[in-house]
């Protein structure tokens, strides 16, 4: 403090400032500027006021309360420091305001003596050592060398000293000196007429004379200059920490599943639907038991180089914490990470598999996937061109190709196994398949009710093909050959789809009829392909294979295609509105007559047509509310119309963009209407075909009834009759409705140009699928995998019941949902979600590890089991958990036994003499109790309040915190003195 005094003197007695009355800072040194900068920051942070508050009686929540941190960079010449203010947010601020009593000295000095906040489980080291709740630290900025030399240290200390006095700040301020890892701080706190110096000693080894309480008490006494008599008592708090890190007794229970075995045969298929789960290694690395003796008084406990009273088993206070393995290998986590990493691979499927293979297979459309052999025997007529021999031939070529390039990423059995899992219908008999499909549909519908997670995550329903594909890709990626195997499987998958398209087999496991826009794009694409297959099927059935059509017709009851419907409607007489299922199948024979020779099947009612009777009615569905045409007595029929084109979200986006691009002008609107009038035209043509002689008014009555206004008018013979006319907007000359009507020819739907070109759309989908790189694929499948992972976590959590995990699953679902609903998900945020899922897997694995260690299964009764369960849960959530009853409680007993077991097995390994020596050397104080190892750390806290520096000075707080470990000896002291007369 010599420097500090000198500076003050200099400022006061500077002769020049007295003479000229000009304040001249032009010559201010770098050092002065640094000091003023520090003061400025203190002022900015409003730390300069008289912040003396009375210490509240309650225990402050040092570890769970909120710590506020403010940081600012300051420079000393070109040396950057960061100045940081830490403060515990006081929750009961109001209470302290009411008792605005002036405290005798700064809050920090009161904190030094407070015994309520000792050993906080989690806090800044200065908080732990000094018990303070507010302080400022100046430490060298990042990438700046540490302050090692003594003169630099002193310079800094002087600076803070000057700043504190100048600004009247009562918050303690520290500077960090020496290398960062040593955590050496030096500091000072200024009050009115009092000040506290904070200083530290840090050594590698514990000097033997200070390796116990009595030695440390000697240091404390000599440091405080203990001269008065009688001596005020010294308050002592002690905490010993024991570490258990030997789990020989509990070998890690989970063995990683043997994935090669899964593919061995029969079991394989089912196993592909399951995600692996759990940690492959021990997840808990250490148990730390802290035994605390709070508030002892000097003399009541003896601890010297030959004897110690401190038996951990009898410590009044036990607390336990766990140290977890940082990144244990977790199965589910690895799987997710691997898939996510795939996103970064730029290679195309071709580049990965070599150019030839894809082309060769793509060109030769008769070669299909390996699965074709499975489908083939039961395959019905349509693939007549594929003889059995050609199938065999192809399969052989397939295998040969595999043999040729030996490094084929997936074995043929593996591949078959996967494809069978993906397309279970292929293995089944065709008839069996048809009955099986509705079943699986029903099941998944039930799933949908209980679990709409797929909507939230925009993935695909569980059990859907897309979901299963995601699981397979994930497993293949992690366990069966990585990138190449993924590319290969994808290629085979797309080939199988192409095979199905070309041979009219529906793809099972896609549920919805039309693309479900709530699902991921890949799922929509597959559904789209299925739509195309269905429509093609319907078409082909009519054209090619008469004897199979009835089956198709009854299959399609829920979704009549224009063709079958046309056929049946020819059967219906004017009087029969609607059709039963029976009438569909009944009609089959006439149906084909009708197609071949339509003219003959006209019913008598149709022949009775008036004016337009020359044209025959075609494509009728059923009459519309028994209305008759305006210009005739014919019933008004609703025509069979073309179905709308199914759309996937990318098509839709494209279309919306085109429509939006037309702008908002009248012309734009007109053009837009025209672009969309194809559907209207088609409907009008169908209507005209079904209702020969109809007029626009008739059409409007069906299509847009509110545009046909009917009013009662009284005619000449004073009868009230209904007279109808088009609404004004329909009468506008040249409006699109009128125009389209005029252009519409009477053509039934099945002879119109298709609004939806299933061939083109299917090819588009297949092309889209073919060009997806493995990286794209991983993006497409990510929602499904996150979905599956969440389900897996839920399932695993349910068997353990861990509240924190349950909560976090909710949280991560919400977050993932937000991200995945976006058109272009933010993948860096998704990474967070995945990390979060992994963390949860880890917590569950940790819990399971703890469960076996604490032998929860062997608990005496339900109540005890529940207690233990809660205890373990808190261990996972809180930094430190109090063991109720300390060493004598139930849980204490279990912990004690864990230590004893390890000690016993350790003793067996050592020769007695050697052991004794070692133990003596390490812990002289603990030679009595051999149940525990020597403590890994000892913390001893000494406090008192005595006058310093002279016996007649004020009584002020003094504190010494000692840390003794195997490779560290640290004395952390805070010594206050009365500066009134010094």
């Amino acid at each position, binding site marked *: 403090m010599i420097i500090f005094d000198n500076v003050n003197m200099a400022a006061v007695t500077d002769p020049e400032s007295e003479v000229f009355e000009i304040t001249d800072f032009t010559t201010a040194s770098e050092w002065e500027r640094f000091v003023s900068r520090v003061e400025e920051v203190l002022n900015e942070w409003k730390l300069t006021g008289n912040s003396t508050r009375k210490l509240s009686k309650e225990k402050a929540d040092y570890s769970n309360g909120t710590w506020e941190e403010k940081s600012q960079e300051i420079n000393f010449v070109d040396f950057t420091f960061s100045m940081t203010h830490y403060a515990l947010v006081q929750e009961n601020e109001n209470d302290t305001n009411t008792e605005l009593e002036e405290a005798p000295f700064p809050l920090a000095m009161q904190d030094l003596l407070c015994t309520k906040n000792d050993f906080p489980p989690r806090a800044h080291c200065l908080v732990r050592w000094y018990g303070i709740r507010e302080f400022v630290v100046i430490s060298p900025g990042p990438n700046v060398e540490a302050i090692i030399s003594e003169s630099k240290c002193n310079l800094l200390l002087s600076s803070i000293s000057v700043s504190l006095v100048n600004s009247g700040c009562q918050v303690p301020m520290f500077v960090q000196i020496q290398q960062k890892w040593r955590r050496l701080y030096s500091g000072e706190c200024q009050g009115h007429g009092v000040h506290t110096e904070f200083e530290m000693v840090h050594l590698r080894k514990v000097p033997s004379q200070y390796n116990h309480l009595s030695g440390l008490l000697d240091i404390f006494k000599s440091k405080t200059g203990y001269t008065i008599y009688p001596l005020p008592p010294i308050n002592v708090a002690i905490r010993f920490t024991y570490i258990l890190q030997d789990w020989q007794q509990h070998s890690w229970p989970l063995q990683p599943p043997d994935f090669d075995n899964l593919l061995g045969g029969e079991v394989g298929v089912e196993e592909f639907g399951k995600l692996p789960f759990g940690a492959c290694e021990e997840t808990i690395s250490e148990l730390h038991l802290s035994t605390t003796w709070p508030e002892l008084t000097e003399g009541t406990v003896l601890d010297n180089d030959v004897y110690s009273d401190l038996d951990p088993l009898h410590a009044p206070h036990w607390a336990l914490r766990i140290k977890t393995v940082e990144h244990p290998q977790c199965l589910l986590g690895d799987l997710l990470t691997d898939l996510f990493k795939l996103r970064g691979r730029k290679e195309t499927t071709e580049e990965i598999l070599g150019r030839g293979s894809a082309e060769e297979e793509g060109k030769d459309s008769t070669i299909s996937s390996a699965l074709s052999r499975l489908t083939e025997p039961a395959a019905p007529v349509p693939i007549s061109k594929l003889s059995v021999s050609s199938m065999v031939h192809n399969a052989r070529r397939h295998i040969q190709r595999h043999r040729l390039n030996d490094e084929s990423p997936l074995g043929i059995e593996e591949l078959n196994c996967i494809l069978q899992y993906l397309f279970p219908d292929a293995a089944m008999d065709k008839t069996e398949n048809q009955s099986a499909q509705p079943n699986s549909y029903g099941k998944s519908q039930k799933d949908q009710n209980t679990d709409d997670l797929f909507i939230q995550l925009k993935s695909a329903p569980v059990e859907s093909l897309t979901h299963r594909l995601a699981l397979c890709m994930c497993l293949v990626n992690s366990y069966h050959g990585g990138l190449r195997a993924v590319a290969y499987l994808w290629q085979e998958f797309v080939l199988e789809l192409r095979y199905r398209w070309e041979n009219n087999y529906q793809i099972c496991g896609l549920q919805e009829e039309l693309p479900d826009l709530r699902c991921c794009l890949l799922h929509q694409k597959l559904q789209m392909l299925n739509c195309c297959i269905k429509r093609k099927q319907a078409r082909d059935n009519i054209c090619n294979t008469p004897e199979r059509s009835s089956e198709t017709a009854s299959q399609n009851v829920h979704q009549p295609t224009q063709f079958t419907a046309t056929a049946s409607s020819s059967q219906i007489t004017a009087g029969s509105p609607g059709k039963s299922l029976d009438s569909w199948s009944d009609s089959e024979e006439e149906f084909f007559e009708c197609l071949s020779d339509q003219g003959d099947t006209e019913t008598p009612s149709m022949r009775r047509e008036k004016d337009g009777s020359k044209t025959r009615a075609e494509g009728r569905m059923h009459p519309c509310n028994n209305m008759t045409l305006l210009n005739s007595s014919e019933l008004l029929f609703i025509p069979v119309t073309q179905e709308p084109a199914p759309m996937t979200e990318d098509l839709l986006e494209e279309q919306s963009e085109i429509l939006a691009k037309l702008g908002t002008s009248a012309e734009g609107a007109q053009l837009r209407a025209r672009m969309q009038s194809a*559907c209207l035209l088609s409907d009008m043509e169908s209507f005209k075909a079904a209702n020969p002689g109809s007029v626009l008014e008739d059409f409007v009555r069906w299509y847009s009834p509110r545009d046909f206004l009917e009013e009662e008018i009284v005619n000449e013979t004073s009868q009230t009759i209904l007279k109808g006319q088009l609404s004004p907007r329909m009468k506008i000359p040249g409006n*699109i409705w009128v125009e389209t009507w005029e252009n519409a020819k009477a053509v039934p739907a099945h002879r119109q140009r298709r609004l939806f070109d299933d061939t083109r759309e299917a090819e588009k989908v297949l092309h889209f699928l073919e060009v997806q790189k493995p990286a794209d694929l991983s993006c497409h499948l990510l929602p499904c995998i996150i979905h599956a992972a969440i389900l897996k976590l839920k399932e695993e959590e349910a068997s353990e019941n861990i509240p924190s995990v349950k909560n976090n699953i909710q949280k991560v679902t919400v977050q993932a949902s937000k991200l995945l609903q976006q058109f272009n998900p933010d993948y860096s945020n998704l990474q967070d979600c995945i990390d979060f899922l992994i963390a949860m897997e880890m917590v569950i694995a940790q819990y399971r590890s703890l469960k076996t260690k604490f032998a929860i299964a062997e608990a005496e009764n339900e109540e005890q089991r529940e207690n233990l369960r809660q205890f373990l849960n808190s261990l996972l959530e809180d930094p430190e958990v109090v063991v109720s009853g300390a060493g004598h409680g139930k849980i204490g007993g279990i912990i004690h036994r864990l230590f004893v077991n390890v000690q016993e097995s350790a003793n067996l390994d050592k020769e007695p003499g050697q052991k004794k020596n070692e133990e003596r050397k390490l812990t002289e104080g603990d030679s009595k109790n051999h149940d525990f190892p020597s403590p890994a750390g000892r913390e001893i806290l000494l406090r008192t309040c005595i006058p310093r520096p002279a016996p007649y000075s004020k009584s002020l707080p003094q504190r010494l915190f000692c840390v003794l*470990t195997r490779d*560290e000896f640290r004395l952390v002291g805070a010594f206050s003195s009365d500066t009134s007369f010094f």
Partner: protein
Amino acid sequence: MDDDVLTTLKLLIIGESGVGKSSLLLRFTEDTFDPEQSATIGVDFKVKTLAIDGNKAKLAIWDTAGQERFRTLTPSYYRGAQGVILVYDVTKRDTFTKLENWLNELETYTTRNDIVKMLVGNKIDRDDHEVDRNEGLKFARKHAMLFIEASAKTKDGVQCAFEELVEKILQTPGLWESESQGQTLRLGNQEQGGGRACGGYCSVP
């Protein structure tokens, strides 16, 4: 021009045919009324920038045809909408009774469940009301919607309807912001203080 626009919102107008959806939109975007507004085919589209509390929002409004047959086409465009205006004609009861169907449709085809809905009873300039204001109110309350009666012809309530809807959307958290503003995940047992505060256990290995 778009620099100061806070966000772009997608709005929908749906309802039975002939209730005046396109007229409402025309009144709002161009402040005109065309008695000869032709029946919409498929979907139509208009844009308008609206200032709410000093924030400019660009509105992309999709107007749809009300005819039953078009319903196979139009719902595709519901995707991604943040707000919807559901219109009925106060002089035609059937347009009111069919509202439930429209809500079901919305439920099925919209991609988000927090979409803001507004019910508008149009054509209040006419005398032959068949649907009482209170009925509209009741329906709106039952389905948690905003409600207003309006007339595209006389301008009554039109501007207000759109403004209220947009304001409500802007007030709904998560409905329009970019995701980066969203909160980040935090494990329940993660340390709050960040890396600076070393573990309390730091002094012992």
